């Protein structure tokens, strides 16, 4: 269906963003979108593009002439204009500069980015008054034709709904709203009803006085700790209420245990909403004013642990409130929390957006010895979005507002110890607290864009205006992990793959740093003094059953490095925004003591051509923070560093961001700190997706669904994923097509949570040709939506035309049996047979092309001329035709000639699937016919050992992956044999929306030839939108005496005539019936319509038939409903034979595989799901089948619809199983679905698929290839072989043994 995406293509933001960043479009042709606003830096990359600028700071813009060469020598006017979104720009492109001096005029030079950096706004030039919002958005425009309008050739930062830059005011200063404050006790009856102890009924309420003019406002609930009171958080209450929040701090039952505090917070939140809605609070001001879908919990000390336990209770269902649920908790912020780790009340934030405050000088919750106050453990248990903010020089009671302080005195015990105190007044800590809380909450609750800068940029570089930058004691560090379900790739978090030479993502790690060790982030002797036996001294992120791990190493006055190889499927860094990692200085280590300052080093990326680009983590100020040197023990203070990926391109860096093969950290005198000890963790790539983001996974504009024809509506599975899975309930999603919400009849399966996604099956009914927009909108929280334009496509099937190229490996290894080392030719013959079958599955209006690949001296001139002699066109792309114009026989003849050249003219690797892909792509794209669907089936048995490479530059230049990613060709990939490059083939299929399978020289009940042919048939069904409703393996058992003496059969077959029946439903447009045997001319089949005594007669175009010695294929238009039958005449009942019938049907069953989950070494989980629907969901189907393991053993599986996470809700028509695997290698799935339609009619469907678990041994150069004829050892021969059985292939006397 990819062709349809192109046919109706409309630019999407993501695609444009990619183009803007990495492929600047000619300025003559287009408006160029790029980042422009930010701050100059003193060192490479010389400029930081940002989203937020304090109103008291200057604003600069910069553009790199090496990335945007068209701007060189242009004189442009630089405008700072009020922000507009794309549609507003379309109707109003007038430029009105908002700075005091008007637009700057500047001639851009070719020198470098420094020479093209311009100051465009002085402090307070631009308004930052956003009311109760935060940040005033502006777009930056380089008006290079000086037309005073945004027009072709101009450059803009901020044309989308997100502004180019936001001017922000002091987040530590109060907002514009007056605040009403109430103190009260909940009534005894209300407290009792909600389970609040009589001692803790008090609430302190803050809200905007002017609340009547507001829509519903978010709610912030605060719980205190021991020694604190419910009314000690007025600084937070007033601050947030002045920005339009309802804030209530409550008395907290903290003495008994944090678990009691948890119940108090749960109950107070519930009771508050209840009482506000009844009008019992604030004179009824709050009735209807609380947005209960946006709740923030803040807790202090034991209350800080309490709010986390509270969420855990919502998460595990042991507490069920009346007025809100788990999904409504948008953020938890724990201030200096305890962590008592009591059984049954573990402070586990699970998936909530979690933020942790730590006071580095805290002597109450010390974080030091013992197991009750190491607060970072709570942070590290959070599984999704998480932040940590450490305030050096701060004590425990400076986060609240003690009575004594309010009375003008100081706290009698600030619970503080350490140098560089920020007390004794709590003013400084409060300004840090409030200045950070506002953007933190705005980010999570409102999706505020500039707020993200406060969470992610180092404090040295960016902080609230109200927090002094002149006081060197103010040291704040941030740890931030984007936990979105999509848009992130963790390269190494040290949680799996224990070897120091392998990252958790499975790729290689190299280093020459010293004393390197991976392990749990745990000070193992609880003594925060450095000793060699405690390599993670000062680390408190994990203890006992906590699991956080990292790596620690050092370097001493020498240049050293630590390098990660990048896995093949994520080397395109263009799809990410930042490289991010967290790091801490190893406390008290001699190197840390020797360099008492922030540690700095270089982050370097290297592409496949060896080009590199480096950015120092201190370029924008900061680094890995110097630990706070308090009196008794220093913590490892983790701090996140982020490097913007596009910055690596600055000033003509030759690095190719589309193919980064390694990230290296360079340490030592030439790269920053001369010596250091570093704890490192969580290296990841991130797109910085906001948690309030929905994304449609299926269907998409790039990969639309076939939604039907003008007379027939197909069922379409819609898969949605939320950046944060629990913030969107399936029930709150509204599905629209072309702007019209679907009615109940158009939703076959209601939205339901399946794994981490939401699934629904829609049934739009028939429509005219064309593609339609799909939109998913959330009603709670409101305003969040995802859309995929042109993702539901209709086209009358009769006119669907396919251009299909078969790319076939013919290297010498294809002749050799990988496990036995016998020169059997079996793989080659199987590939030929399946290809020929596929040719005959083509319709006359389809085109067929054949490409083979083997590096060889094709013309025997004694040399290999590349790339011509890597692959060749065996049959040009040709219309299949029919009758006199039929080209299919010619194509099949060409296939017969595809054989390995056993004299390739050299000795060495022969396999270059890339050359075949390029060849196939070239012939498919030779004619610009967007209405034709393009498809390649690539079959290979080897590793990619010759250029052009899929994901690396090689002898022929760039990798080919990007061009296929940008193309609209579906590539299905098939590996045959245990040495095929499964990861490569899987990535090719994933990138091109195809499907990958490795048939492992025979899968299931058949061996390779039959299974391969069956798989090609399955691919043909997928492409045509057919459902396989009949499948039968083997010659029908029922033997009967043939008395008909049919003249159509030879006499030798008459004794083996057998019959099988299958049901055909009414109103099918067409039906495909195919019969296939693995041996030529051994089986003859006759097909009978319902009630007919004579076989069906070919009557094109109503009934067509393609025949071959191994198979016959019928295409029958408007087949007669009822019981069809076929009669098989065979002299051999043991021949491998299968029969299929398929058609586009109203009832659909479709299979989806999720990525394999690695639980631990040797333990893998494969979630397998099937959805079944007609006009409604189809319940009570029975789904059984088998999975053939790499060792040949078949495991029986059953898919159930019982409400487990793998299968969504019970009885929703979505069935699933989590298959547990233990052996690396290739698995084949074969399933039968049977049941009754929603109208009670029996049905069957047959589905197959496969998956691979990486880690199986592969031979780079296979036996046979490059004429390597060294036989494999016996051990190799029998590797992964469960048992040997005899079988026959191709001819009746051709008997083999096989696994």
């Amino acid at each position, binding site marked *: 269906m990819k062709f349809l995406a192109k046919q109706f293509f409309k630019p999407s933001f993501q695609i444009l963003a990619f183009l803007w960043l990495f492929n600047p479009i000619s300025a003559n042709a287009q408006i160029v979108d790029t980042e422009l606003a930010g701050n100059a830096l003193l060192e490479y990359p010389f400029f930081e593009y940002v989203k937020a600028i304090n109103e008291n700071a200057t604003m600069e813009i910069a553009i790199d002439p090496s990335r945007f060469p068209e701007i060189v020598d242009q004189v442009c006017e630089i405008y700072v204009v009020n922000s507009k979104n794309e549609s507003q720009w379309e109707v109003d492109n007038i430029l009105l500069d908002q700075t005091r001096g008007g637009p700057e005029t500047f001639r851009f030079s070719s020198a470098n980015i420094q020479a093209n950096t311009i100051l465009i706004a002085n402090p307070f030039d631009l308004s930052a008054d956003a009311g109760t919002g935060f940040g005033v958005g502006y777009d930056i425009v380089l008006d290079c034709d000086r037309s005073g309008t945004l027009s072709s050739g101009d450059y803009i930062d901020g044309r989308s709904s997100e502004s180019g830059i936001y001017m922000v005011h002091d987040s530590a200063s109060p907002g514009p709203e007056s605040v009403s404050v109430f103190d009260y006790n909940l009534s005894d009856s209300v407290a*009792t009803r909600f389970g609040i102890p*009589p001692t803790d009924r008090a609430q302190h309420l803050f809200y905007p006085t002017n609340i009547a003019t507001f829509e519903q406002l978010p709610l912030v609930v605060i719980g205190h700790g021991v020694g604190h009171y419910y009314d000690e958080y007025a600084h937070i209450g007033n601050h947030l209420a002045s920005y339009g929040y309802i804030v209530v701090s409550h008395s907290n039952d903290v003495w008994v245990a944090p678990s009691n505090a948890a119940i108090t917070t749960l109950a107070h939140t519930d009771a508050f909403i209840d009482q506000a809605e009844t009008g019992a609070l604030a004179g009824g001001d709050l009735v209807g004013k609380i947005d209960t879908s946006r709740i923030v919990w803040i807790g202090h000390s034991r209350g800080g642990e309490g709010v986390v336990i509270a969420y855990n209770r919502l998460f595990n269902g042991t507490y069920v409130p009346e007025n809100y649920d788990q999904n409504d908790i948008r953020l938890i912020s724990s201030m200096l929390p305890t962590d008592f780790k009591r059984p049954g009340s573990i402070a586990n934030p699970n998936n909530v957006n979690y933020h942790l405050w730590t006071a580095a000088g805290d002597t109450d919750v010390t974080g030091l010895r013992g197991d009750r106050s190491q607060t970072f453990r709570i942070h590290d248990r959070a599984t999704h979005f998480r932040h940590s903010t450490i305030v050096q020089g701060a004590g425990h009671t400076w986060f609240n507002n003690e009575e004594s302080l309010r009375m003008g005195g100081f706290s009698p015990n600030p619970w503080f*110890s350490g140098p560089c105190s920020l007390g004794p007044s709590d003013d400084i800590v409060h300004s840090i607290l409030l200045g950070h809380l506002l953007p933190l909450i705005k980010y999570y609750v409102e999706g505020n864009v500039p707020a993200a800068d406060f969470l992610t940029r180092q404090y040295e570089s960016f902080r609230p205006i109200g927090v002094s*930058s002149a006081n060197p004691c103010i040291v704040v560090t941030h740890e931030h992990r984007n936990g979105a379900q999509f848009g992130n790739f963790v390269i190494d978090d040290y949680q799996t793959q224990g070897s120091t030479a392998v990252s958790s993502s499975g790729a290689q790690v190299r280093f020459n740093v010293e004393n390197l060790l991976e392990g749990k982030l745990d000070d193992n002797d609880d003594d925060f003094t450095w000793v060699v036996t405690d390599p993670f001294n000062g680390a408190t992120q994990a203890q006992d059953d906590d699991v956080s791990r990292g790596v620690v190493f050092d370097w001493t006055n020498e240049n050293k490095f630590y390098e990660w190889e990048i896995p093949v499927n994520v080397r395109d860094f263009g799809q990410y925004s930042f490289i991010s990692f967290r790091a801490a200085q190893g406390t008290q280590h001699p190197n840390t003591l020797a360099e008492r300052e922030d540690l700095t080093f270089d982050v370097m990326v290297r592409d496949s051509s060896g080009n590199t680009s480096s950015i120092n983590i201190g370029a924008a100020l900061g680094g890995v923070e110097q630990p706070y040197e308090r009196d008794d023990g220093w913590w490892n203070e983790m701090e996140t560093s982020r490097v913007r990926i596009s910055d690596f391109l600055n000033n003509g860096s030759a690095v190719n961001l589309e193919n980064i093969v390694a990230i290296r950290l360079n340490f030592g005198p030439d790269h920053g700190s001369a010596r250091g000890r570093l704890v490192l963790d969580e290296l990841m790539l991130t797109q910085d997706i906001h948690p309030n983001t929905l994304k449609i996974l299926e269907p998409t504009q790039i990969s639309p669904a076939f939604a039907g024809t003008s007379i027939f509506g197909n069922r379409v599975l819609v898969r949605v994923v939320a950046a944060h899975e629990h913030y969107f309930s399936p029930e709150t999603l509204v599905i629209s097509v072309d702007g019209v919400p679907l009615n109940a009849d158009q939703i076959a399966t209601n939205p339901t949570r399946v794994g981490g996604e939401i699934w629904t099956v829609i049934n739009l009914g028939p429509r005219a040709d064309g593609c339609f927009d799909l939109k998913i909108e959330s009603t709670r929280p409101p305003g969040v939506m995802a859309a995929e334009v042109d993702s539901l496509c209709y086209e009358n099937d009769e006119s669907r035309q396919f251009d299909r190229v078969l790319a076939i490996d013919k290297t010498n290894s294809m002749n050799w049996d990988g496990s036995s080392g016998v020169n059997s030719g079996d793989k080659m013959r199987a590939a030929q047979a399946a290809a020929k079958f596929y040719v005959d599955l083509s319709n006359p209006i389809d085109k067929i092309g054949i490409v083979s690949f083997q590096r060889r001296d094709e013309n025997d001139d004694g040399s290999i001329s590349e790339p011509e002699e890597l692959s060749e066109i065996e049959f040009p792309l040709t219309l299949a035709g029919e009758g006199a114009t039929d080209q299919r026989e010619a194509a099949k003849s060409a296939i017969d000639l595809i054989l390995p050249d056993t004299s390739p003219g050299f000795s060495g690797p022969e396999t270059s699937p890339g050359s075949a892909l390029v060849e196939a792509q070239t012939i498919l794209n030779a004619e610009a016919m967007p209405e034709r669907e393009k498809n390649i089936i690539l079959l290979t048995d080897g590793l990619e050992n010759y250029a052009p490479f899929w994901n690396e530059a090689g002898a022929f230049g760039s990798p080919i992956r990007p061009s296929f990613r940008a193309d609209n060709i579906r590539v299905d990939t098939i590996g045959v044999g245990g040495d095929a490059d499964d990861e490569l083939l899987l990535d090719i299929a994933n990138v091109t929306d195809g499907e990958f399978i490795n048939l492992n020289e025979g899968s299931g009940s058949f061996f390779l030839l039959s299974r391969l042919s069956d798989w090609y048939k399955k691919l043909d069904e997928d492409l045509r939108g057919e459902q396989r409703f009949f499948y039968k393996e083997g010659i029908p058992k029922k033997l009967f005496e043939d008395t008909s003496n049919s003249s159509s059969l030879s006499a030798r077959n008459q004794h083996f005539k057998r019959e099988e029946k299958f049901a055909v439903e009414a109103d099918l447009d067409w039906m495909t019936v195919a019969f296939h045997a693995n041996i030529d001319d051994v089986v003859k089949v006759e097909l009978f319509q319902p009630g007919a005594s004579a076989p069906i007669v070919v009557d094109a175009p109503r009934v067509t038939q393609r025949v071959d010695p191994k198979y016959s294929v019928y295409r029958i238009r408007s087949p007669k409903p009822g019981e069809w039958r076929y009669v098989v005449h065979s002299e051999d009942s043991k021949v491998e034979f299968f029969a299929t019938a398929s058609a586009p049907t109203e009832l659909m069953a479709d299979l989806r595989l999720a990525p394999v989950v690695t639980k631990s070494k040797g333990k893998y989980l494969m979630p397998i799901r099937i959805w079944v629907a007609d006009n409604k969901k189809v319940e009570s189907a029975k789904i059984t089948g088998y999975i053939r393991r790499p060792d040949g053993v078949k495991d029986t599986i059953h898919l159930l619809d019982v409400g487990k996470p793998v299968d969504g809700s019970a009885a929703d028509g979505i069935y699933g199983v989590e298959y547990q695997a233990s052996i690396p290698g290739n698995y084949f799935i074969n399933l039968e679905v049977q049941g009754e339609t929603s109208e009670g009619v029996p049905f069957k469907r047959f589905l197959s698929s496969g998956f691979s678990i990486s880690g199986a041994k592969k031979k780079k150069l296979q036996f046979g290839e490059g004429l390597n004829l060294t036989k494999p050892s016996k051990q190799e021969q029998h590797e992964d072989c469960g048992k040997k059985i005899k079988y026959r292939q191709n001819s009746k006397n051709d008997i083999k043994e096989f696994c």
Partner: protein
Amino acid sequence: MDSKTLDLVATIKKTRIAFLIYIALISFPQTLWAKQSIQDFWKQQLPSGAEEVLYVRSFVLDKAYSNNWQKGQKNVDSGIILVLRVKKELVPATNEMTPVLYAGNLILQRLNIGDESGHVIVIVPEAFDLSKEIIWFGQPDLPSAVNAESIAIQRQKAEKSVKLLSEQQIQAVTLNEIRATDFSSLLGGEISRLILKYSPQEASLAKQWRLPEAKASYSKSATSQKAQ
């Protein structure tokens, strides 16, 4: 950020170490030491008894309340209010675990901290003979975490070192039974009065328990203020 600002920040970073040292010299690093000393004190002193009983009064409630200091919670409609003078080191206002206060095998419900006054106001959740069973501080723990077994083991040890309160002293401070409709009324009445008398530093508690109750007819009397 302009170069001037960058220079400034760089200068700040350079001077930070010197400033850190200066501040370290003038800061007061006493509290962490103090906390460790308290833990040492507990090791040496526990189990330990109350110094003196200052107030004893039985109470009866018309409506029972759920006392969650006891394992599995306990509906309490009568008990005893005590005011005890204790060693301040045993009742710090910390969020760490502190010594648990018992009457015999019962965990006492603490109503205040008493770290500054040295006076703790507690509830004995049922009838209890003060003259026959000890009032004692056990090992630091969360009250929710102790169980009958650990209490029994600790109590055995406590009985060797903790003396019974003197009967004479008990009689001297025992008042007539007090009756209240519910525990909230008791908190807002007699117990708040005790807070103000015996631990005035914690007057916030009394203020809290005496706040008006939110009702549908609750009159709007709060002040509106511009956030400061």
